[in-house]
């Protein structure tokens, strides 16, 4: 690594400043808090109503609706902190370029970390509804997004206005188990939950999830405290595809994960503090998110390794979605289409370094931006061989399946 490279500095900065909480968990917390807070008024009315279908009417003709929408000159974009290209003075070159090309002024708010109200506000009041104040928010796949969709609190995308998406979106963005018809979600970035390890402590390479069950590493194995991750890992270890798994499979997975715990193999179920545990040597190997290890490598821990095990690894995604009653829906579509254009994607991707939804950005990052480290990283542009190993999360988004899932895996994580 050339220390003069600006990418290293930004990655290092992010290593220092990134919250020690996982994206996925943050969304859990935020959505939970949102609904919890929303309970107040509901209780006052002496009954907690369900939120299902409380958004738009069921029979809206969205094609006609989109035709009525006029272009506006504004866009309000709520994102996670440090999740877009950032140059000197805190400017975002991609957003500036977007403004120059389209004439749309962007109000960029990296608030989704500590401002749970963003999600709380995404509760439109019928019938007309109050706009949340953002035209785009970035949400991870998970039951929270599932709930937003079930509530009809989102505006369906108009793909006729997304030619670049159609042309350039890679498999990461088009094969979504949680939104099969791509009705609401345009992937912003994706990532992998695999295994990270310290070769000095494991005494060799790791290539299988079996290592996480190896008694040799008793007390030195880290697991994530997210029940989706723990349960999915058990499914992978059993050779079951999580995406099509059933309740019976889940029970088998729970038995396997319980055994791992009861044998004393698991040191701890970590939130994002697993990164620190790995750096401190508390664990020799751990479940891990790809981006975290890439950043650790650039911030003083070059020896840590991340692997997609041969049994497969989980693929998660953060999605751009348009809240219901957004004021500038056409601008939102324009921005989505803008960042799916390879040259624009390259600007953003070269800074974020998670998995890009636009494969064609790879050549631009390598050749024009002259950054082969990022361009050739399989964790940014996964080759087909790796894509084939990435798995979709189980469909446990409905309240019943969520209850079943949590009922099986929470007692393992918290006992």
């Amino acid at each position, binding site marked *: 690594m050339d220390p003069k490279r600006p990418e290293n500095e930004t990655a290092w900065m992010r290593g220092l400043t990134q919250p020690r909480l996982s994206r996925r968990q943050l969304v859990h917390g935020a959505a939970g808090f949102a609904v919890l807070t929303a309970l107040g008024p509901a209780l006052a009315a002496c009954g907690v109503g369900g939120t299902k279908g409380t958004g738009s009417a069921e029979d809206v003709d969205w094609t006609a609706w989109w035709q009525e929408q006029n272009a506006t000159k504004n866009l309000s974009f709520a994102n996670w902190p440090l999740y877009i290209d950032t140059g000197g003075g805190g400017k975002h070159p991609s957003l500036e370029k977007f403004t120059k090309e389209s004439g749309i002024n962007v109000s960029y708010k990296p608030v989704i970390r500590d401002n749970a109200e963003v999600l709380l506000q995404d509760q439109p009041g019928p019938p007309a509804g109050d706009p949340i104040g953002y035209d785009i928010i970035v949400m991870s796949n998970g039951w929270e997004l599932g*709930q937003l969709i079930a509530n009809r609190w989102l505006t369906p995308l108009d793909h006729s206005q997304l030619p670049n998406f159609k042309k350039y979106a890679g498999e990461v963005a088009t094969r979504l188990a949680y939104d099969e018809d791509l009705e609401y979600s345009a992937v912003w970035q994706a990532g992998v939950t695999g295994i990270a390890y310290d070769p000095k402590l494991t005494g060799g390479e790791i290539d299988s999830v079996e290592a996480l069950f190896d008694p040799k590493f008793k007390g030195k194995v880290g697991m994530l405290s997210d029940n989706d991750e723990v349960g999915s890992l058990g499914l992978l270890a059993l050779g079951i595809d999580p995406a099509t798994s059933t309740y019976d499979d889940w029970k088998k997975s729970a038995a396997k994960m319980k055994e791992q715990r009861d044998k004393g193999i698991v040191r*701890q179920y970590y939130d994002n503090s697993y990164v620190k545990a790995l750096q401190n040597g508390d664990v020799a190997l751990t479940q891990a998110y790809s981006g975290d290890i890439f950043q650790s490598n650039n911030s003083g821990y070059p020896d840590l390794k991340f692997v997609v095990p041969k049994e497969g690894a989980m693929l998660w995604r953060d999605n751009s979605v348009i809240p219901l009653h957004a004021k500038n829906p056409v601008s939102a579509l324009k921005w989505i289409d803008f960042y799916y254009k390879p040259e624009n994607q390259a600007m953003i991707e070269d800074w974020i370094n998670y998995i890009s939804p636009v494969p064609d950005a790879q050549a631009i990052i390598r050749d024009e931006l002259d950054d082969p480290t990022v361009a050739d990283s399989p964790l940014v542009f996964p080759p087909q061989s790796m894509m084939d190993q990435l798995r979709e999360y189980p469909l446990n988004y409905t309240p019943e399946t969520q*209850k079943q899932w949590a009922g099986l895996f929470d007692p393992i994580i918290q006992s």
Partner: protein
Amino acid sequence: MGRNFKKKVTPLLLTAPANFWLWAFFTIPLISILWLSLTTGNTLDGFTLTWNFGIYPDAVSQYSEQFGRSFLYGGISTALALIFMYPVAYWIAFRGGKYKAIFLFLLLLPFLVSFIIRILTWQFILADNGIVLSALKDIGLVSQNAHVLSTPFAVIAGLTYDNLPWMALPVYVALDGIKRDQIEAASDLYASGYQRFRTVILPLSAPGIYAGILLVGISSVGDFLSAQILGGPSTTMIGNIIQTQYVQNQNYPLASALSLVLMVALLAFVVLYGRFFGSKTLKEFAG
């Protein structure tokens, strides 16, 4: 009218803000929680009142281990806090002289830093290859595989540490309020150092100890951060369960029931404790 009316109305007016506060932010939420615990449903379809009292025995039996553990950890950490802080408070009160304020300030100084930061620092210090354990491992005092994090010891240590000032302050106030004449009187009556402490100082400081135990005990039993950050797979406390059920699983009825059970258990503890040691302490200590 006149004075009588004033006498009746003034206290009402003076307590009105507190009354409002308690009703708005304690009583009403408490009733809501009770009500919520008896409903069934989910956030999508809504929660309906089904008078599901069965949730209480279920919640208790399902999480009896975590309840027991919370009271055990809380009890141990409260006792440790008292053992550690009584001598400190004693020393500042009787030997601090004109620097009392400075000593108190120094005692509280670390607690001006956010709890999260302090507990994360503990995590760093106690890490397997951290400064403490790696040194002990190098000189062969502990085995290579030894670890402190993820053990009950780490959780109890974290709980104790976080609550030290809440024990130190009330004990200090009680000790500092003891009139020196009374101690002198004991000496004049030929009390030995031990007798002086046992029959005069300890009984007079009992209200401080009582308050300290309440403050520390209640907050450590319900704590979840220490277990979350310093604990392991088998140190989960009831606070962690409630947090998960509320925030992550949106199982509001179960979380509400667990909260209420915890509250009632703590309340029972406070009542019993008050009966046996509260107001009578002075007399009993004095024998």
